[in-house]
């Protein structure tokens, strides 16, 4: 997966490239106000980041692409719907850009941002 051989040579798409597409698609999804890095040591989410390689994790699993996204959601939106939209949008954009099937997308809601309290 992510690798193709043409008569001119090979094409390899790195997980990082896929992550960048997913990152931008995520940030355009409504209700998402940021991505969160996963602190691998203790799994605690620390802060909002704008670095594309953090918050989005892409794994090639044989023929499949698995994507994991950690998002911060705007307080007051329906979190389920937002997360579902993220999965749909990311799948659409990645599949369109790469022509590769995405096997699964796990969306973790890492936190909420409160900008207004009602």
């Amino acid at each position, binding site marked *: 997966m992510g690798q193709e051989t043409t008569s001119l040579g090979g094409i390899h798409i790195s997980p990082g490239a896929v992550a960048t597409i997913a990152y*931008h698609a995520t*940030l*355009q*999804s*409504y*209700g*998402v*106000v*940021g991505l969160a890095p996963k602190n691998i040591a203790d799994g605690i989410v620390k802060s909002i980041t704008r670095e594309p390689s953090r918050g989005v994790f892409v794994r090639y699993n044989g023929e499949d692409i698995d994507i994991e996204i950690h998002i911060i959601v*705007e307080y*007051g*939106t*329906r979190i389920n*719907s*937002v997360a*579902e*939209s993220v999965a*749909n*949008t990311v*799948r*659409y954009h990645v599949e369109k850009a790469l022509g590769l099937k995405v096997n699964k997308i796990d969306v973790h809601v890492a936190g909420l941002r409160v*900008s*207004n309290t*009602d």
Partner: protein
Amino acid sequence: MSVNTARVDKLRRRQIDGQSLKRLVEAGLAWLHTNQQIVNSLNVFPVPDGDTGTNMFLTLTSAYNEIKDSGEKHLGKMAGLVAKGALMGARGNSGVILSQLWRGFARGVQDNATLDVETLVKAFAESRDTAYKGVVRPVEGTILTVAKGIAAGTEASLGSAAKRDAIDILEIAVKSADESVKQTPELLPVLKQAGVVDSGGKGLFFILEGMLRHVYGESLDTPLASVQTLSAMNFENAMQEVEEGQDYEVVVDFFPNSGFELQSFYGRLDEMGTSIQVGEGEGMYRMHIHVPLEKRYEPIDYIMGLGTITKVAMENLLAQMDDIQKNTSQQPIKFSAVESGQIAVVVVSPGTGLSRIFASLGVAAVVEGGQTMNPSTQDILGAFEKLPTDKVIILPNNKNIIMAANQAKEVTVKQVAVVPSRTVPQGLAAMLALNPDGEVDSVAEKMTKALGMVKTGEITIATRTVEIDGVNVQEGQVIALLDGKLVASSGSVEDGCLDLLEQANAAEYELITFFYGQDMSHSEANRIADVIREKYSGQEIEVQEGGQPHYHFIISVE
């Protein structure tokens, strides 16, 4: 547009409170519903939750459900309820944004018992601000842009000298929304490529326009100005249902004179009839409408004044509907052919429609019979004796016929099992477990197990006054039976169905099928099914012709 000016003047003098807001939301919802398919057709992203019109409609429905029984007079509190309902029911991207818009709107009006111009403008601005806060990288050319356009348009109107009221602001909001929607392809290239405007923005426009149409006293049932291409016009679908009293279908092809105005055209048609469709191709327009008998020439006379008519077609829909029904019920029923060694299933069926359904499930023979006309052992025997197999399973589908079926088993030399189905839905459930190539006993056992998977409801008329199972019944009343037990008596078939489904805990199940009897018309059955659909939105509702006598409905809940 046919604006009812007297109504508008009256409304202008009234305070807009919580109850007014409720009616406005209801109108917005109705209008969005009417135009839902138009919004859906604008989707450009083939994503799974992409039916923007449906998502927005479901979200707003949830909002309306939150307030529909509320007597709240305070505008701010009512708006808060709307926002809460929208949040809880938010579906898809567009639904989430819509719920945010309501949340902002509610914040803008929260301290106001009634609506004034400044508050309304402020609320539109809050809507926009709240919506924009929900996303890091707002994409322009979407519903967000439209919310921004509405806020900008209404804010600008405050500066002008003219004295305005809330209805003026709503008019400006609708106009601004319309302009913003038209702008969306310029801002978002993907829309321009697809040749559409943004679907979410259009949905928002319809909600506001519905509110304004309510103020104007205009109809909310007929989609506006949706001109399709001629090839896209499809009248066959329109034939599925004929509204009461709208018996004639009139189709007129014409070339309009210059100055032809679509809005007023629709408005005038709307006064004449229903199921209005207008198509256009190479300058020629085709108008389709359903009108009552006495009005059948009215659309033609009207269009005569608008341009040159090239063709008129008129059809009596009732006659056509009868034909369709006759044709379907007169087609011979085709039973499954059994080969020797296979299991043949013989069922007792009370109606032609039900026989047809059984046949489609692989039944080899049908014996006519039911509650009031129990078939004899001989009848049942006759049905399977001639079949080219020795393996037979009988589904009596009525508790009074089980015995006759068992007797048929005793007198034949064939290998017979009786699966003791007591109702038609049980019989249908059993058919799904049939494996014609298996052994009679084990297959019969599987089918018997399947009987318990389904609940059976029956709706009929009481033939005498009686009290059974704690239910008091007057002669002539509609009664509902659940798995043979009397559970409710009601004044109408519709209420009977609702009572029955409640008793059956239908909300816990997945599929509700209505088999309507020979005393029910197709359209009446559909009407009742629509009522049920509204209440049981989580369940699949199906309507099938059963054709059984006496029972208005046999209902299967599974």
